[in-house]
């Protein structure tokens, strides 16, 4: 589904941010991307979406990421930003959810049918006509996920989906993530959430992949996590 082959990226010449990144994510997989601040997690996601240039080869489905395939790649992959205020730029949740499908050429009726279906699936129908600047952080995050789901992506990238949420909303988001049938790549410092949602984890440090393995294998390895400025998930700390 998603494949990186020897991908490199640098903001300034001589200061690499991503170095020789290679991995493959299969259809339907749920992968956690962990690492300390500045490890390159968000940059990797932006490179995958074509928001930043890169060296090397990135393939999404059967499509190789290039300037002329950006639309196709972005239609295949949805991205949920860390700050939902940056994602929800239309006045109402409804308008925001319609934005993607309408831009991709769907009729108003088709787009609205998608909106209603997604709202029902996520159980947030009551948010439909609410103003984005008047809903809570948790509601905003759910609505942000909904805006992406209306585009029917095959894969979803999430950048810190549980940051700044209270325990109840955090649990709601985790349950929502677990209910999504798409391929998922989730970047987060919330290792408990990664443990709850991902079967595979990629550990990054200084722009390089340090380890790629099962969630159990990596998240239970105290020495490995500490060597990379992280610590065991709370529920494994005993």
């Amino acid at each position, binding site marked *: 589904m998603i494949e990186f082959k020897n991908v490199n990226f640098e903001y300034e010449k001589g200061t690499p941010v991503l170095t020789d990144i290679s991995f493959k994510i299969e259809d339907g997989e749920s992968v956690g991307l962990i690492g300390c601040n500045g490890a390159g997690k968000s940059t990797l996601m932006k490179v995958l979406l074509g*928001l930043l240039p890169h060296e090397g080869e990135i393939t999404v489905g059967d499509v190789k990421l290039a300037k002329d395939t950006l639309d196709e790649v972005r239609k295949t992959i*949805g*991205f949920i930003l860390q700050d939902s*205020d*940056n994602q929800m730029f239309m006045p*109402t949740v409804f308008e925001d959810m319609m934005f993607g499908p309408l831009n991709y050429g769907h009729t108003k009726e088709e787009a609205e049918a998608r909106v209603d279906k997604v709202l029902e699936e996520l159980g947030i129908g009551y948010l439909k006509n609410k103003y984005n600047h008047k809903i809570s952080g948790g509601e905003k995050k759910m609505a942000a996920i909904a805006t992406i789901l209306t585009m029917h992506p095959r894969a979803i990238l999430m950048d810190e989906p549980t940051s700044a949420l209270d325990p109840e909303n955090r649990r709601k988001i985790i349950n929502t993530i677990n209910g999504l049938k798409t391929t998922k790549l989730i970047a987060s410092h919330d290792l408990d959430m990664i443990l709850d949602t991902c079967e595979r984890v990629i550990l990054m440090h200084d722009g390089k992949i340090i380890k790629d393995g099962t969630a159990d294998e990596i998240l239970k390895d105290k020495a490995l996590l500490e060597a990379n400025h992280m610590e065991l998930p709370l529920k494994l700390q005993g």
Partner: protein
Amino acid sequence: MDELAAGTSPVHKLHPLVKFLVTIAYIYCVVSFSKYDLTGLFIMLLFPVIMFSTAGIPISTCFWKLRLVLPLVLMVGIFNPIFEGKAGLISMVTLMMKGVFALMASFIMVATTPIDGLCAALRKMHIPSVLVTLLLLTYRYISVLVKEVAIMTDAYKLRAPGQNGIAPKAWGSFLGQLLLRSMDRANELYSSMQLRAFKGEFFYAAQRKLNVRDALFFFVCIAAFVLARLINITELIGGVFA
């Protein structure tokens, strides 16, 4: 304003484009009165009063929300009595009334029209997409900006005990920080738009077609404005009772 705009009165149900055009026509008509035509202008008060009462919005709400702008409007022509004597007093009152009437009409339009409807109407009027997008995003992000200013102000106050507000020497860095934050947010926001295939034009989902009621409202209002402009109705009514 969002709560006001979410009403269901007949005024709320009018097509945004019609409300926009009628408001423009009203303001044009009000402004075109001679500065000494106080009695002629007086009848124009009927339009905002009818609109407010039909919309179920108290006029006091308008004056309260515009309390910062109103003094500026009322200052227009304040020196006319000095330069023109008695006639100056009339022209001062006329100018003040023109300003207040125009504000009331604009307010009732904005208070009964959701922002997306207003933006769609502006696009229908061929107002450039960039300007309309700017209006839409300013509306959406003004609350976020205010929140950021509040956070920064609190952070400043907590480390500047005994100071009243922000010291002038900190204004530069304060505004600079705010600008940098806004730029970061703008970049993120634009990325989010790009990822959903934004090509420079918004689609306004909540649009509807014009109907007979919209057309009737438009033509009746325009006819009334023209009539009020051509005939001094106030004097005519006064004449009947004289």
